[in-house]
């Protein structure tokens, strides 16, 4: 009996130790052993949640082609979308794809906090490393001058409008507004004659600040000085922009009653025909098609109206394909190779652009949505010419933008604490859109103080 007791206690102890080690293993990071087999496995940002099957097929096809070209690398595309709220915990928990795109505005902060990998050597090994437009490459560089990813797409903000609603309101869909006064008048016409809101602007999750900054640029103002050391939120252009919103919302009643919109929800509402006009990146048409199934015939894209101010310009931004700080050197190298293959080469090499267009065509994906040059304008033009036969987006409904954008000054987003400043501006936009008596001057003075406190 005594012996039995001992043996059973020992057994129980072993069993519980085993349980502990299983739990510990489950909690610990699962270090990849894939390099021991001679192959490197990486997960990559594939498609957005809610994307149609064609988008998924197209990415998977590209992954297969890539693995044929690089037999030592296994690529697994996964569903992923940049979301600031989950990024840091995904990174800490080892749940991030090996490579993913982050907005221009976030690269420097992420690099500073060592949350994305320094891939300078891998990028410099690419044949076109010397040819990047320096101001675009700067978006992928940290304050230490090292390169933290590949800038893969550049947009300028445009005015997206619903051609059907223009017609219903008695407006000419081929003559989109070219001044902000016309935007205001057209918005009122749409609101008066249809059930839709004439003009809507994003307001939450930092997009309110992003779009107020866009409006400010269009009217010739700036939110910060170039070094990002001085806040200038209380400038005349921002004030003028907010006064215009105030008039449209409360006097003209042309912005509808719902004001709580961000990037995804405003796309949804626009695709559903509830919005006449809104500002967003020039490349948003892709998402409108693959995620929101917009009717191509109803879609129009106009150049953003600019004021006469010599400083007036359109806000430009983009994405950097970055690599997780937790990736091993071999995984980092593989990730940059994939980004070169899947995202960058088509921006540089006309043959690669054609090959990419072939795949997109086979899965019925949008081809030819307006973008801006990542390299020089000649390279961009050659690529555009090469894919011309494949273009399936309604380019003739985007001529106002494509004809006008190269005459417009492209202004980068505020240099320092960009998203935090946008967060401060969110409140200002929300206040103006939800409170008829909002005092714009004091709102801006207050926001400027808060921003200045951040900039130091």
């Amino acid at each position, binding site marked *: 009996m005594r012996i039995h007791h001992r043996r059973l206690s020992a057994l129980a102890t072993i069993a519980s130790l085993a349980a502990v080690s299983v739990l510990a293993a489950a909690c610990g990071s699962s270090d990849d052993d894939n390099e021991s087999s001679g192959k490197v496995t990486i997960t990559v940002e594939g498609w957005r949640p809610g994307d149609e099957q064609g988008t998924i097929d197209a990415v998977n096809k590209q992954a297969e082609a890539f693995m044929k070209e690089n037999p030592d690398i296994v690529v697994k595309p996964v569903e992923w979308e940049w979301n*600031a709220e989950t990024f840091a*915990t995904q990174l*800490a928990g080892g749940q991030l794809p090996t490579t993913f795109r982050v907005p221009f*505005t976030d690269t420097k902060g992420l690099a500073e906090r*060592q949350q994305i990998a320094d891939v300078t050597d891998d990028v410099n090994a690419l044949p076109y490393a010397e040819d990047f437009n320096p101001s675009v490459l700067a978006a992928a560089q940290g304050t230490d001058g090292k390169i933290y990813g590949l800038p893969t797409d550049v947009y300028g903000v445009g005015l997206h409008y619903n051609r059907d609603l223009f017609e219903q309101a008695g407006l000419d869909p081929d003559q989109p507004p070219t001044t902000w006064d016309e935007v205001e008048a057209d918005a009122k016409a749409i609101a008066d004659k249809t059930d839709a809101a004439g003009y809507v602007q994003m307001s939450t*999750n930092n997009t309110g600040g992003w779009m107020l900054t866009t409006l400010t640029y269009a009217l010739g103002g700036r939110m910060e000085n170039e070094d990002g050391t001085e806040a200038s939120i209380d400038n005349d252009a921002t004030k003028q922009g907010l006064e215009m919103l105030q008039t449209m919302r409360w006097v003209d009643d042309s912005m509808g009653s719902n004001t709580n919109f961000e990037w995804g929800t405003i796309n949804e509402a626009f695709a559903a025909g509830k919005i006449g006009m809104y500002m967003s990146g020039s490349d948003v048409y892709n998402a409108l098609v693959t995620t929101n199934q917009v009717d191509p015939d109803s879609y129009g894209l106009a150049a953003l109206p600019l004021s006469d101010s010599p400083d007036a310009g359109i806000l430009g931004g983009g994405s950097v394909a970055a690599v997780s700080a937790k990736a091993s050197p071999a995984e980092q190298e593989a990730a940059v190779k994939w980004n070169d293959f899947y995202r960058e080469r088509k921006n540089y090499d006309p043959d690669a652009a054609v090959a990419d267009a072939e795949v997109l065509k086979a899965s019925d994906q949008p081809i030819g949505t307006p973008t801006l040059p990542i390299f020089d304008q000649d390279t961009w033009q050659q690529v555009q010419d090469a894919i011309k036969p494949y273009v399936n987006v309604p380019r003739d409904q985007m001529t106002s933008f494509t004809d006008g954008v190269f005459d417009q000054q492209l202004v980068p987003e505020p240099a320092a604490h960009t*998203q935090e400043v946008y967060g401060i501006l969110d409140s200002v936009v929300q206040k103006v859109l939800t*409170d008829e008596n909002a005092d714009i001057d004091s709102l801006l003075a207050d926001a400027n103080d808060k921003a200045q406190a951040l900039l130091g």
Partner: protein
Amino acid sequence: MSSLLARARAAAPPVVFLLPMLLVFGLFSWWPIVRSFVMSVQQTNLVTDPVFVGLDNFRAVLDDPLLATAVQNTLWFALLALVIGYPVPLVLAVIMSDLRRARGLYSLLAYLPVVVPPAVAVLLWRFFYDAEPTGVFNSVLGWVGLGPVPWLEDPSWAMPSLVIEATWAAAGGTVIIYLAALVSVPPELYDAAEVDGAGVLSKVWHVTLPHLRGIMLITLILQIIGTSQVFLEPYLFTDGGPDNATLTVLLLVYDYAFANTTGGDYGKATALSLMLAGALALMSVVYFRVTRRWSE
């Protein structure tokens, strides 16, 4: 086989059988609590090595002008929930306990919202709260010549709108608790009251409520603790807006940790969480001290 199990049971110390439970509870409940104490005095982004910063995080939280807004909003939510949300389940339970027929059906109807996943419920209510005159609630109000109401679109309307949805979502659970307590009221007391000529209201006042007093005090403190930690509704409906009108303490904790795109301030977030937990614990102790005499 069974004799082996019996022998194991006889031989192994009880702690062995408790071990799996202790492990899970320790790992998923107590370890995070201990970690949050540690993180509240650190600056960390969960990737690089944390830096010890003493009480800086607590100071930074107390210096944040948004803290006052968040505390005010949370108190406002708690007060509204008390005024709107606290009597609703009590009234429902008293009415339902008086029903003779189909009581099960009414219990089901009252409890159903609790079964609906909260995120789904919020999505549903966002439709109802559409501020356009064509929105669900506004259409209904329009039939009787009222509205349209800017449910979530106006700083002064937003919070009451959240409370209405939260009450709808949570009332069912409390109704069940009250119903169970009401069963324990001896029916003779009602008969006696009736003989004395008591109407429905005075029966409720003199018989039902005194019997429910103990339960009501518990549900009250549970509700206060619950509403002080309100997060889901402001996060999903309004994200704290418009203009921070629905920013609550827990949402501020969340914003510290996750809303900043370049990596959160987990130190500040845990510092504020601990301060909230401390305040609630203190309040609970005071509450039970004060009400001890009443509930006996």
